[in-house]
């Protein structure tokens, strides 16, 4: 029960939640693209700050996304370390200069160039993530399906997104129930048991879970057939919201951010990289 809460969509009434799913989807793409494109750490930190502010405006509590943030931080740190281990001199090739700071060996010499490159990369991840979280948590799954459909994806491909989210909490509940019943037959899932045995025991839970889920799929398919799913080439969406002025403003703003990212590269940095060393 508790685990499934993480994925539940909770309706809220604020400016971010009230944007249409389509707007959120487009803004998500535009902002991510702008961060992905640029290697200018000033710009990236700017976007990152804005997205954290939006996160606050959307009233998404840190507590709710704590686990996600921890995973992301671990990933970023790991990435930072591994990048250095595998290509410690890459910054040199990128920026065309070499200002050493500290030397472990000839190959493993940390330079300002390498440091800037790695920090830029980490900042990219760190600022892209809140945008993703924001989109993920503040979009009603059906509305998201609706926006994918409006963006041109066939509704038959878009609908399973919403369907998965509908039945996911139930699968978790089923898994927990089955796990309890199997534990009472003597199945040990705790750390007392050896790793391989635990894996084997988990299989014992998945087998009934698959059977129960297959039964469920048959019912859902029938229910959908009976109510005309797939009848015509188009479909409308109950949860779709009409585009309002604020939606266009949001899209234009995000578009401007992407433009800045591109213009910065073309006219000021003359490359995707900001090079303070030349």
């Amino acid at each position: 029960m508790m685990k499934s809460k993480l994925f539940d969509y909770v309706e809220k009434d604020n400016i971010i939640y009230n944007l249409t799913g389509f707007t959120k989807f487009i803004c998500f793409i535009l902002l991510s693209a702008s961060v992905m494109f640029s290697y200018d750490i000033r710009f990236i930190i700017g976007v990152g700050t804005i997205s954290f502010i939006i996160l606050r405006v959307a009233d998404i509590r840190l507590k709710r996304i704590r686990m996600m943030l921890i995973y992301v931080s671990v990933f970023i740190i790991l990435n930072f370390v591994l990048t250095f281990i595998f290509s410690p001199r890459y910054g040199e090739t990128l920026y065309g200069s070499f200002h050493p700071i500290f030397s472990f060996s000839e190959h493993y010499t940390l330079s300002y160039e390498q440091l800037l490159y790695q920090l830029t990369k980490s900042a990219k991840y760190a600022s892209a993530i809140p945008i993703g979280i924001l989109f993920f948590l503040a979009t009603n799954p059906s509305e998201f399906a609706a926006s994918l459909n409006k963006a041109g994806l066939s509704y038959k491909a878009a609908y399973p997104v919403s369907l998965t989210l509908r039945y996911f909490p139930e699968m978790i509940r089923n898994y927990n129930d089955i796990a309890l019943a199997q534990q009472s037959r003597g199945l040990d899932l705790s750390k007392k048991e050896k790793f391989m045995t635990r894996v084997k025991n988990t299989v014992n839970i998945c087998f009934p879970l698959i059977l129960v889920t297959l039964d469920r799929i048959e019912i859902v398919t029938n229910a959908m057939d009976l109510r005309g799913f797939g009848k015509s080439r188009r479909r409308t969406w109950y949860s779709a919201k009409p585009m309002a002025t604020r939606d266009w403003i949001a899209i234009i703003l995000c578009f401007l951010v992407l433009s800045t990212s591109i213009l910065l590269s073309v006219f000021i940095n003359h490359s995707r990289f900001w090079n303070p060393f030349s």
Partner: protein
Amino acid sequence: MKNDPIIEFKDFSFQYYAQAEPTLHNINLTIHKGEKILIAGASGSGKSTLGNCINGLIPFSMKGEIQGSLIVNGKETRDQSIFELSSTVGTVLQDPDGQFIGLSAGEDIAFALENECTPEGSMKEIVHKAAAIVGMDKLLSSAPQELSGGQKQRVSFAGVMVHDVDILLFDEPLASLDPLTGKTAIDLIDKIKNQYDKTVIIIEHRLEDVLYRDVDRIVVMSDGRIVADMTPDQIMSRSILPPLGIREPLYIGALRAAKVTITEDIHPGRLETLYIAKVKDRLKAWNAAQVTQPEENKRPPILEIEHLNFSYSRRRKIIKDVSMKIHQGEMVAIVGTNGAGKSTLAKLLCGFVKEDSGRILLDGKDMAGLSIKERSAYIGYVMQNPNQMICKPMIYDEIALGLRLRGVDEETIAARVDETMKICSLSPFRKWPISALSFGQKKRVTIASILVMNPKVIILDEPTAGQDYRRYTEIMEFLRSLNQLGVTIIMITHDMHLMLEYTTRAFVFSDGMMIKEGRPSEILSDIEISDRASLKVTSLYELAQKAGIEDGEGFVLSFIQRDKEVAL
């Protein structure tokens, strides 16, 4: 225009491609506009298949070969499409949870409209109207997990009412509802039928509950054939139902016991219409001749629960100061609405969750500190759906699993599994794969897999949910035989028949508290308690009241005891 036929089967047969034999044989049935029909039959009688032919799942989603003709709304079904049919026939399926597709009630109701490209503006309006018909208009933004089973069913109902369908088809609408909610559902169906002049088809084996409101005809199916097509009065006056694995209403059984000759002219179809003046004297005479001795239980307690409290979060207590005693070798029921705390109590007993305060004693020993695994040596837990428990492809391995996990040697295992299989009459299937078994047999396998560990107490969650009378009897007689071997059996259930016929005591839960314990006949004769626990007073009691018998509960008890004796 009431007499226009709207559904016409003519020499209709159907065979699934995957099956060797036809599922429906030579069906001839005409249903007229505005009629209300009950299609009854045991599991596997073909009643659901018949329904699927009407709504178009057959042949469009479930493939097979059709012979003969089926005309719905003036056109052969096979020449229409499932979509065309769905605008004439609105189907409410059995599982209220599974057919809930949307992420909110409103969205689910709108599903059919969305698929028809109804513009977003007018869609909201239609959804609101349809929801108002079933009384769900205030809950449009609720998520499925916030709704009860009955409410989910109403949502599905509204989902077919968004179209102006002519025919409403309900596939086992009572299967997953508690008795009181089921009664409300039957009431609602009746109201809407009359108000909007719909043709209604209800597929159900729980006759007594459907007949809470009038139906025009009952069509009885058996082995893919229609064996009776009569009014309720005609059906009840002939004893054709029990041999077909369908339960007759309890009050009919009581009339038979009192040697009343049941004929059409006493209107036995429904208790409400029964001409009581004609049978009153006989009933009274029979009742006077009965001697009832309430069974006293003097055996020592096996399970004692003392002042148990439990809550998941600080805000809401799930179990509030529950104390109860269950004696060795008893067979008891725990009843109450969803969320009353029944399942949580079972979880506490098995050690899945830990009590906040209070004690659970087994054979006088405190169970606190025992792990799930350790407790399972004393208390076994059988889930409702056998598919949730079975994790080995072979019967033998499934039953042996618990022992193997405990490191018992194979020789001992073989002996124990053999013995358990014998008790559970599973020996002939020793080498079978589980996939080849029927639902009832699977249930027996799951019970066997618990029994093999020799627990003193077995807890079963809804042991007979969704089962027809024949399978119900099969499962319950099996449980009774286990009980006679000395196993204490606790059942969590909504089924009033089960309570009445198979248990000696019942505990009623409401809102986390145990509000009553007593004989089932006593509980089901108590209007207030039944209401609070979402049960329904038994028709036996109502019959006694109608006949002017003062000690209604005594009458219920006499009948149940007599019924047991007849069964033995």
